[in-house]
């Protein structure tokens, strides 16, 4: 597809949309689908048809609107794409009322107030198209300025300039560790090798994280565009998206998006009339958390057991089939098109000194508004939890926020006024991770939470290196004894020793970070450990303490 | 100087460590002049005495009686030595730990028995679900691995302890020796 053809396509799409007076957008991302949004969508389509309004009202499925807890979400927009109203909990039976309200009085009983902080305080870059465009139609993405950044790169910017722009933006990897993206790109770009690869890590494995899922389901082309730009910048011509098989909808939409992009010549050979070639293939994960680790992921794409290998050499030097390989996660790639469109300096103006841009967080657990939010880096944790999240339901008391999944830690109340960015989260012993935030209240036992994550790590350990394989198992056993009320102070000392061992000696990040949930809970909630060990009591009432006579010896 | 009060104890093991202890030839005479054997399978003493200086323990902790004994020993002993692999690792006795106690008793006393196929229950200590190294029950001060540890190692260990030194076991023995 040439630039002219691209513009033509946009005009056609705009022309076609002009006919509609209103559009009714139904969220068909996984969250709302679980609340049967597909039935809502069908009912609305039927209703519009039955009322003979199908020339005036366009009913379409769109991506995630964020507030999953209130799904299915439906939004009515006018011809200028301005929002009239958002409805929550819309079922098939509401179709008639909803359709009738287009351009008229809204249905008060269904209104979802979008002036609440959950919506009002968000700054959307990654999610800018989510809830607005139909993820299954490339045309809508293109109209929403899609593939414009790629076009700009191919026509105006040399690959080195693209890397420079990304470096200038200060973007850091959104997968967890926060490695500077520009630096990674530069390393791959510099590597001397004919064959290079770009991999999108869509193996969102942290339990409690669903940002990447939402992006893939709501705006898959954005990820493809980010990858294509990366390929152009680094000199790669093949890409893989390694996606969790647990996300069938994301896989379906990705495959569909790739097909569409190939059809219009945005992927494939001679992209946009240039000599740039880039093809993308989806590879399915198969239920292994460790495959989020770069070298394990590469092994998995190669069809092997997903075990990591020692680094260096890093994938940027020697990755997939020994070739230089760029691996970024979904959200990182999703940030690329706007950065190239609006410039690195624009992106760098958002966020904090060392963490630029926005971050998408998945709010879950004991918080009123569960769902996805995108906020500028540096927003106070308290604001995220209590303002956007709406605080703790049922009058319960806040206890901790768990970030970073099994590699992260539990952040207690005293740090609520911390600004959320990579470095400040790391300072309190957790990690940013991919952006999952599980809020816990007084009904959660922190030792039990530590045990939960250790069980996770034990079962997800690949088994290759000794510290992680046996260490996680031994640590889990000790934590079981703590929650049983049978652990001794010596065993706690051993637990601490093993934490240090795993952190220092494990082969990969999984083992190195596995102690984090234990370390942070021991640091901030030592009283709960002591209560189990000395007091033989679980303060939250979660753990079943063994009676004295059951205890061996 | 008064003689050091020494005890030896035989838990779940084959008595090989005790054999090795007795196997030190003429050195046993030297040792005898330094110590008073206050409790041992080789001494007719029913109760574990108080104020024991050094106790050498052979064998793993397998039964409720073993555990009971260990606790009394610990209370009344200054320096507790785990003697041999059974005491330290569980060794051969611990090979039963992969199975349930009932399965093992059944195998030994019923399936493989020719006469009187029944599991003894009266007057015998009850087996724990697992046979364990003694340091999982009580604090151990010195570990002397080996199956059995060489006599010389045992002698040197005891001699060092009597001289108030920390025994250096390292180079003279190992697991399984």
């Amino acid at each position, binding site marked *: 597809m040439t630039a002219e053809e691209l513009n033509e396509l946009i005009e056609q799409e705009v022309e076609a949309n002009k006919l509609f007076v209103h559009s009714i957008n139904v969220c068909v991302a996984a969250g709302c689908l679980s609340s049967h949004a597909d039935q809502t969508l069908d009912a609305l389509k039927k209703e519009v048809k039955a009322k003979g309004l199908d020339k005036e009202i366009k009913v379409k499925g769109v991506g995630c609107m964020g507030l999953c807890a209130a799904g299915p979400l439906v939004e009515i927009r006018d011809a200028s794409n301005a929002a009239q109203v958002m409805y929550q909990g819309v079922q098939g039976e509401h179709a008639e009322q909803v359709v009738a309200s287009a351009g008229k009085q809204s249905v008060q009983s269904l209104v979802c107030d979008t002036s609440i902080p959950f919506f009002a305080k968000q700054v959307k870059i990654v999610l800018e198209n989510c809830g607005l465009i139909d993820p299954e139609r490339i045309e809508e993405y293109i109209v929403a300025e899609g593939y414009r950044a790629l076009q700009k790169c191919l026509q105006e910017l040399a690959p080195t300039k693209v890397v420079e722009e990304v470096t200038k933006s200060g973007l850091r990897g959104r997968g967890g560790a926060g490695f500077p993206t520009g630096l990674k790109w530069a390393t791959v770009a510099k590597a001397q090798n004919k064959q290079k690869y770009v991999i999108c890590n869509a193996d969102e494995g942290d339990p409690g994280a669903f940002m990447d899922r939402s992006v893939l389901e709501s705006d898959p082309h954005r990820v493809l565009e980010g990858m294509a730009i990366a390929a152009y910048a680094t000199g790669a011509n093949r890409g893989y998206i390694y996606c969790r098989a647990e996300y069938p909808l994301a896989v379906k939409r990705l495959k569909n998006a790739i097909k569409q992009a190939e059809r219009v010549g945005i992927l494939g050979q001679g992209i946009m009339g240039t000599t740039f070639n880039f093809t993308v293939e989806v590879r399915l994960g198969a239920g*292994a958390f*460790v495959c989020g680790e770069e070298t394990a992921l590469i092994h998995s794409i190669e069809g092997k*057991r997903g075990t990591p*290998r*020692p680094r*260096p050499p890093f994938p940027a030097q020697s990755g997939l089939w020994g070739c230089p390989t760029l691996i970024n996660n979904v959200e990182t790639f999703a940030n690329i098109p706007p950065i190239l469109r609006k410039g690195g300096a624009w992106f760098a103006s958002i966020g904090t000194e060392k963490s630029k841009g926005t971050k998408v967080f998945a709010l879950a657990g004991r918080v009123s508004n569960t769902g996805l939010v995108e906020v500028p880096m540096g927003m106070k944790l308290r604001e995220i939890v209590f303002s956007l999240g709406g605080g703790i339901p049922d009058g319960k008391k806040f206890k901790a926020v768990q970030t970073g999944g099994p590699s992260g830690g539990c952040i207690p109340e005293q740090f609520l006024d911390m600004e959320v960015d990579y470095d400040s989260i790391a300072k309190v012993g957790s990690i940013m991770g991919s952006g999952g935030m599980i809020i816990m209240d007084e009904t959660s036992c922190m030792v039990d939470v530590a045990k939960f994550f250790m069980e996770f790590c*034990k*079962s*997800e*350990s*690949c*088994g*290759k*290196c*000794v*510290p992680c*394989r*046996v*260490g*996680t*198992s*031994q640590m889990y*056993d000790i934590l079981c004894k703590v929650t049983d009320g049978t652990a001794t102070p010596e065993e706690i000392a*051993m637990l601490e*020793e*093993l934490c240090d*061992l795993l952190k*220092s*000696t*494990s*082969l990969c990040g999984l083992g190195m970070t596995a102690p984090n949930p234990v370390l942070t809970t021991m640091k901030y909630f030592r009283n709960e450990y002591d209560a189990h060990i000395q007091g033989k009591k679980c303060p939250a009432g979660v753990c079943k303490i063994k009676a004295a006579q059951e205890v061996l010896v | 100087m008064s003689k050091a009060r020494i005890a030896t104890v035989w838990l779940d093991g084959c008595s090989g460590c005790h054999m090795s202890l007795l196997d030190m030839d003429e050195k046993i005479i030297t040792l005898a002049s330094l110590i008073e054997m206050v409790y041992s399978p080789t001494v007719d003493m029913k109760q574990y005495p108080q104020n024991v200086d050094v106790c050498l323990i052979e064998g793993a902790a397998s039964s409720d009686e073993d555990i009971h004994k260990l606790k009394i020993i610990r209370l009344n002993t200054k320096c507790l030595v*785990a003697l041999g*692999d059974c005491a*330290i*690792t*569980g*060794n*051969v006795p*611990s*090979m039963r*730990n*992969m*199975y349930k106690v009932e399965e093992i008793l059944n195998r030994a006393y019923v399936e493989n028995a020719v006469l009187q196929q029944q599991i003894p229950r009266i007057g015998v200590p009850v087996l724990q679900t*697992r046979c*364990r*190294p003694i*340091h*999982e029950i009580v604090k*151990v001060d010195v*570990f*002397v*691995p080996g*199956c059995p540890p060489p006599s010389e190692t045992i002698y040197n260990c005891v001699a060092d302890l009597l001289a108030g030194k920390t025994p250096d*076991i*390292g*180079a003279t023995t*190992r*697991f*399984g*020796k």
Partner: protein
Amino acid sequence: MNSTLASQIVTLKIDGKDCGARGDETILSVARENGIDIPTLCHYDGLTDIGACRICLVEVKGSPKLFAACSTLVTEGMEVSTNSPRLQRYRKTILELLFSERNHVCAVCVSNGHCELQAMAMKLGLTHVRLPYRYPNLKVDATHTRYVQDDNRCILCQRCVRVCAEIEGAHVWDIMGRGIEARAITDLNEPWGASTSCTSCGKCVHVCPTAAIFEKGKSAGEMVKRSFVSELAAKREVYE
């Protein structure tokens, strides 16, 4: 390996000693050439290194991370420390983890006295294991006419997997499952004796550091391993 690296000469310090090396050498090989001993378990001369056992970890000045000496290439100006108290402590604890993982009963083992795990315990001064033993119930496969596989003694070093895949070329062995449930298997986890791919060459037997794989008919202490595999690997060549 990489030909450009091989042509580079680098100088580095290992435990204070100045060493010269080719750029494609590992810390381990350079250390050994210079008479500095770094303990290893999963490493085997002639097989690809995987950095799995973590016994050979060393400190490199300027990095908070530890590096597996077997799989880290030397670089110019590197200052390596191989035996700090911290490393000694870690190595010992890793060894404890290994002993606690499965059922290592040295006294009745065919490799008693010739076992690398046992020797390592002695070398590192490990007199007892502070962690509780796990006592898993594991299988012994004696279906092969000449050899026996005993999971109780396996430390998952993957030497058997590597020697079979890389030197013999049969790839009879691999690892199944993961984490603490990982096991070495032959073919589709079938009895070794029924294996259609095994050539009965015995290389796996002789690279096994313990007696997880051993020759039939040997009793306690009788299994002595031969060290021909490294030589085989070194002498491999393309004929003509």
